[in-house]
């Protein structure tokens, strides 16, 4: 019997602790300030203050799946570059994503390289909100790629390609870019495993 009575305060304390934890993690501070009802109590006014904390601007990305290509194949390889921008700054000042890419070099023989120009181009990109989230999409004029206006990249590790400029008051939230990369492997390339490094840069707009 004593054991059972001990459990009741533990249960109550646990519930209170969990509720406090939930509220602190949600991070929203609701405060009732002012307000009140009129004399007849026919209408009441409540003011709720919502304090939204600003966060960071960052990128979420990963290596794309390796492109498999047999020399002589008529279809050249293409695939998506996983790329999500997380703009939680709530500033609306906008951001720009650009990238540089190094020349493809064969792993076993560094003298075997793919050309710096004409090997990789970005052929499609349609920004979208990350799954189950709300966002403000970037301006389509400066953040979309179509096959009639592809963006070829010079693979010298220095020339920067601007992929997307969100524009002012846009691009807020988690924006999935995932641009499509199309490769053009020359027919006279040596067979082998080739590797390149992409540096994706995100920067706030000036």
């Amino acid at each position, binding site marked *: 019997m004593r054991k059972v009575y001990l459990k009741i305060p533990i249960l109550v304390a646990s519930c209170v602790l969990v509720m406090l934890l939930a509220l602190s993690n949600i991070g929203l501070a609701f405060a009732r300030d002012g307000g009140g009802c009129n004399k007849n109590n026919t209408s009441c006014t409540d003011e709720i203050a919502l304090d939204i904390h600003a966060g960071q601007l960052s990128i*979420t*990305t990963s290596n794309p799946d390796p492109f498999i290509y047999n020399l002589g194949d008529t279809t050249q390889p293409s695939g998506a570059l996983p790329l999500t921008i997380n703009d939680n700054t709530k*500033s609306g*000042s906008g951001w720009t994503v650009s990238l540089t890419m190094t020349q493809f070099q064969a792993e076993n023989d560094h003298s075997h390289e793919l050309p710096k120009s004409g090997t990789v181009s970005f052929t499609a990109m349609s920004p979208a909100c990350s799954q189950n989230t709300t966002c403000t999409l970037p301006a389509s004029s400066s953040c979309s790629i179509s*096959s009639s206006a592809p963006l070829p990249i010079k693979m010298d590790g220095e020339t920067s390609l601007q992929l997307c400029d969100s524009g002012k008051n846009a691009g807020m939230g988690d924006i999935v870019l995932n641009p499509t990369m199309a490769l053009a492997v020359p027919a006279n390339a040596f067979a082998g*495993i080739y590797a390149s490094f992409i540096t994706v840069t995100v920067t706030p707009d000036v």
Partner: protein
Amino acid sequence: MRYVLAFLRCKFWHTLLIAVFCCTALFAGTGFMAFGSNAQAAAGEPVFSLQPVIYGPAVTEASSYFAIAAARGESVQEKVRVTNAGSATGTARLSPVDATTAPSSGIAYLSAGQGQHDVGAWITLAVRQVTLAPHQSQVVQFQISIPKDGRAGQHVGGIAVQDAALPKSTSAPGKNQVQINVQQRYVVPIVLTLPGPQSEALAAAGIQPSSGPGYQYLLVALSNTGNLMLKPRGSLQVTDDQGDPPRNLTINLDTFLPQTSINYPVYIQTEALAVGTYQAALALNYGHNHVLRYTTTFTITAQQLQKIVSAPLKVPPLVPSYLPLWLMILLAALALLVIAGISGLFTWRLAARSARGARKVGARHGWNRRR
């Protein structure tokens, strides 16, 4: 009461309590993800970002970059906060970098390995590497030493941060494959304004056509010859010498940094420009009511057109289907001359033959003798 006590006594109660606790904690965690301020980082990787600690007085709307007005020869002390928004401990490598204009306009920051000659060369960081646990941050001091002979106007550079560790390579079984290893970089911009006369100036130096599989564009050579950032807007009108309606192409450039030059690509939509010579008229508005007007000619060759080869751009026939009007008139005149010449020759020969025949007949009948 008896049933309640019995319920509390049973072992099921413990399980229920744990389940309720876990569910509520999970709910709390979901709330954190939905409303919290931190970015969703890639699993098991550090993600670094930077924020100015002291904001420039000119920046009112955001704290995302440094806007500094300074004098030549001055040294400016600033601070930047390095944050690891990822889910793993990592070492951030900090580098001061210059900025330039990207080929398609917009600000591009050089890599740390490239030579820095402007803002990137003027910055000295207190530390260049910082090791941070997830969600940990550290303030790093830096100094900008403005040279005494610095150009008046705006200078743009930044501080870049990226993981000091090289990206892990992804491979699949097989011999013929192309791997791409991605690394992230964050740059906090620094816009430095030096005193002196400010000028907005834009110049065009030529227009060259270029093409590739499924696309065709005109490369417009532009230079920002002033000392302030510009965002030119306008159009490019292309007319041929065949009397076709002109094509108006819209141009909206992103930020164009001072003292930089680019070949800005203007894409041809729907149908490619056919082989021939064209007139291009460029009109760009920039700065405070400035307009750049530039006209030139360019030629599309069959070789360039052959590179397009595929959809979505409609490719016109390689050989022009009809000739220019002046050439048609010239050809028609030539044809008339040839016809007139041939008919004249034929008439003359016919007349000559008739005269010769008449002489023969006269001789046969002795007309000459009678005369």
